[in-house]
């Protein structure tokens, strides 16, 4: 009978054993007990890297996380590459040299003629144009697409402003855009037409039709609806200064291009005068463009492979999967064993293959940072994704040679879903933010981090006024003002997190003090990201690492429709300030305008910044060519292993 009882036990314990499997596999790979995984990998020239989470996919235009980015930066290379020891220095990538015109609005990148994809197909300027076309396509809905909005007309195309592209950009269009732009192109979201949209348009009453059309706006109408306006102009509410024939002209033009991809019409500032020259025209001067094109959103994607596995705008097709993925970076995908590891190997077609220092890299998706630290100390990893602050003093005493603490440009914050009841009130969000004791959290939980006073950490000369403090009494008062005294009337909220972290437990207890009930909801990395993108969460513990050294990398994403906003919040005033800053050439007045924008963000608090990162991780000394970088974008190709 004891055996049967044990039978239940062993069936129950199957899964944790599975999670041990990567480690067992590692041990098995060692062959013998004496040699650790790291020593074996040293002989083979393979770097073993802890990478925190299993990537959702490796389509660089769709993923947004740091774990994905680490792998993608080994598999792909942009026009300009990162320097191994200097965050700001530019290294030639696919482009050998680049130049710009006087006002920095036109940039010419000269691509190396020997650039190839990892399957040997030549890499040309057309590939870059295809990549940016795909990235900006409204159909792809890439979260990071706004990184390309500084390209001329790219924003209009990305936002699918069809009326503007078809009429406003067409110089031969008989009616000036100035006259047309007061028409309702983008729709009025305050008009509720949710129910009508699901019904047959022709069955609706005239009044219902009118409301539906007004809520949608001309840009978002389908052929049936446009035809209805053409037949009966009174269905749509036009401003008086637009004459009747101009109205039908606009609608006819929209109807003619109903399903067309407007990339050509948009006259986007991308040109390839020859196979190895890429000309990028910007809508405004962007002095930091070379720094920005190092980000993965500006990497090329292989047209010939993507089109083999689906349409250009299909999301998450097989193209980025094991065996299919083709890149242009120093490494190519060799093996993707789900939940075990992703291994990349030297890419023989890489232009600088002779100078790639490693034979391969293996990325381990170890979600639990404590497990990761133990694996490292047991000689199974060369480098960890991070180190729990709790282990800091222990490791400092026992293994000081492995410990790395470095500055890092990033912010830990709590993201609010401002469409949820209670959280839609800025006073409630402010109360929650006031309840957070940032200094205490940084002293005891995020050891080594700095308490955040704004969203943007200290960056160059940019300084935003301190905006965040801790005041429980004021928090309670604000809650009462909002109509929720002692949290009464507020629903129970769940804090979404991708990994267990003591800070989440601390926040739970903190909000409890305000009388707000909070549960903790843990999801794996992919579902965690997806839940935020679909606004299917209440609050989420999140982190944001700067993509380049400019405050806009922390501010640009809080605009309406930005795929990385995920709060449901936007502010017209905030966006106007960002636009104003973009057109400002003088750095100090530009910073002043950005600080003003940040003031609005910190006033409305769709997010509650908690701490500014510092990079804390374990790293083996035999990894050479790895230098402290505040953006943590280590070019993999210059790294070598010298035990």
């Amino acid at each position: 009978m004891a055996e049967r009882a044990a039978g239940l036990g062993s069936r129950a314990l199957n899964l944790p054993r599975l999670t041990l499997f990567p480690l067992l596999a590692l041990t098995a790979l060692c062959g013998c007990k004496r040699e650790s995984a790291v020593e074996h990998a040293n002989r083979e020239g393979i770097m073993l890297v802890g990478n925190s989470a299993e990537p959702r996919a490796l389509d660089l235009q769709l993923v947004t996380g740091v774990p994905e980015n680490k792998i993608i930066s080994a598999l792909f290379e942009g026009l300009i590459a990162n320097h191994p020891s200097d965050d700001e220095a530019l290294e030639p990538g696919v482009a050998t040299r680049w130049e710009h015109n006087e006002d920095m609005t036109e940039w010419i990148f000269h691509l190396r003629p020997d650039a190839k994809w990892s399957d040997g197909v030549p890499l040309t300027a057309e590939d870059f144009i295809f990549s940016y076309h795909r990235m900006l396509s409204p159909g792809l809905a890439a979260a990071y697409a706004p990184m390309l909005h500084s390209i001329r007309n790219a924003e209009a195309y990305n936002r699918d402003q069809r009326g503007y592209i078809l009429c406003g950009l067409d110089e031969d269009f008989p009616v000036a855009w100035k006259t047309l732009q007061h028409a309702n192109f983008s729709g009025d979201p305050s008009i509720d037409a949710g129910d009508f949209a699901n019904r047959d348009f022709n069955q609706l009453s005239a009044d219902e039709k009118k409301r539906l059309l007004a809520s949608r706006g001309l840009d978002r109408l389908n052929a049936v609806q446009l035809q209805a306006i053409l037949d009966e102009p009174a269905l749509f509410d036009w401003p008086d200064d637009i004459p009747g024939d101009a109205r039908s002209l606009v609608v006819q033009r929209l109807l003619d291009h109903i399903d067309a991809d407007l990339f050509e019409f948009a006259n986007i500032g991308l040109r390839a005068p020859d196979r190895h020259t890429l000309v990028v025209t910007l809508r405004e001067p962007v002095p930091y463009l070379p720094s920005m094109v190092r980000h993965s959103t500006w990497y090329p994607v292989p047209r010939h492979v993507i089109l083999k596995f689906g349409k250009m705008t299909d999301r998450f097709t097989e193209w980025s999967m094991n065996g299919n993925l083709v890149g242009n970076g120093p490494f190519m995908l060799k093996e993707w064993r789900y939940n075990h590891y992703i291994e990349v190997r030297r890419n023989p077609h890489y232009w600088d293959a002779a100078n790639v220092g490693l034979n391969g890299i293996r990325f381990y998706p170890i979600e639990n940072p404590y497990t990761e630290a133990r694996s490292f100390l047991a000689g199974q990893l060369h480098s960890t994704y991070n180190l729990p602050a709790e282990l800091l003093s222990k490791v400092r005493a026992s293994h000081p040679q492995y410990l790395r603490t470095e500055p890092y440009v990033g912010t830990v914050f709590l993201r609010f879903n401002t469409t949820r009841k209670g959280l839609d009130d800025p006073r409630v969000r402010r109360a929650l933010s006031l309840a957070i004791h940032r200094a205490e959290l940084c002293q005891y939980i995020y050891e080594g981090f700095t308490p955040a006073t704004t969203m943007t950490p200290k960056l160059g000369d940019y300084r935003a006024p301190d905006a965040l403090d801790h005041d429980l009494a004021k928090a309670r008062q604000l809650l009462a003002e909002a109509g929720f005294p002692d949290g009464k009337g507020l629903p129970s909220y769940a804090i979404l997190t991708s990994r267990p972290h003591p800070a989440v437990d601390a926040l739970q207890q903190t909000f409890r003090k305000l009388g707000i009930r909070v549960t903790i909801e843990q999801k794996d990395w992919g579902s965690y990201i997806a839940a935020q993108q679909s606004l299917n969460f209440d609050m989420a513990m999140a982190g944001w690492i700067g993509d380049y050294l400019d405050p806009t990398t922390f501010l640009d994403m809080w605009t309406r429709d930005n795929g990385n906003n995920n709060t449901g919040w936007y502010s017209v005033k905030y966006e106007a300030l960002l636009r104003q800053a973009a057109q400002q050439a003088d750095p100090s007045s530009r910073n002043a305008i950005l600080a003003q924008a940040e003031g609005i963000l910190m006033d409305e608090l769709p997010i509650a910044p908690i701490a500014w990162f510092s990079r804390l991780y374990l790293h083996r000394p035999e990894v050479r060519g790895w230098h402290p970088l505040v953006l943590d974008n280590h070019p993999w190709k210059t790294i070598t292993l010298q035990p």
Partner: protein
Amino acid sequence: MGKPSINPDAEAGHSLWSDAWTRLRRNRAAMCGLAFLGFIILLCFIVPFFPALPDPAAQSLPNKNSGPSLSHWMGTDHLGRDLFSRILHGGRISILVGLITTTVSLTIGVAVGAMAGYLGGKVDAFLMRTVDVLYSLPFLIIVILFSALAKGYTNDFTDWLVDLTGLNRDAIAPFTSLIPLFVAIGALSWLNISRIVRASVQDLAGREFVEAAKSLGLSQQRILLRHIIPNAIGPIVVYATLTIPSVMLFEATLSFLGMGVQPPYSSWGILIKDGADRMLSNPLLLIFPSIFFILTLLSLNFLGDGLRDALDPKSAKD
């Protein structure tokens, strides 16, 4: 007069139960186990009501990872919460999980097993094939699915209960959140016991005393409840003491996977999982809850062993 005097005790009636109890009392390991279980149940279910015991959820970050002291007998955890208090509160959940799910699984298992064994024929075939089908289902996945599906309903149920009884939500939420777990584990872990009971009942059904009962014209229900099941009680009780620890282990597994008790409430499984993460920085967080867990499991195993010996029908003829 010349007759040898007979010990009057030996003449008193000896029920099966008192015989078993006598034998159990002689088994020192089993008695130690029983005593310790009683102690731990008292500790977990009575001590938390003393106001002197710190709130298990109250955090004090400046005081984190402090060693054992007068105010914190077992020190504090990584968030400055009192470990002793957390172990006692967690113990309530772990013990309740053990007892309730075992009761559920015994009730179903004994009923199914006894019916199958006694009625035989088509009923037996149907019930046992059902058991076969359930055996083939992946236990863990079913429990996880069920817990996930029932999560929303549990919250509603908790709200309803709070409205109805006016109880403090914090006091009942850790238990109501476990109801899906109780139901799911209970509903799937009765398979073994039903097989055991069926075999026992098949054996007993042919015995003389059952024949006698039948010839007296007793109803099937009465025969089953009064004559057969009490005679099969030995294996059932033993199996129960062995199921409790395995269910407690299972709760630990589920909590390890994030499906069991939700923070800030804890169970021994959660405490051990958190402690295992932090064994490099504060090994006490692993050691103390593990001691409680291991001693409880050991006690249950000793008691189960002792009960098996004590209730063994063969030893009744000693």
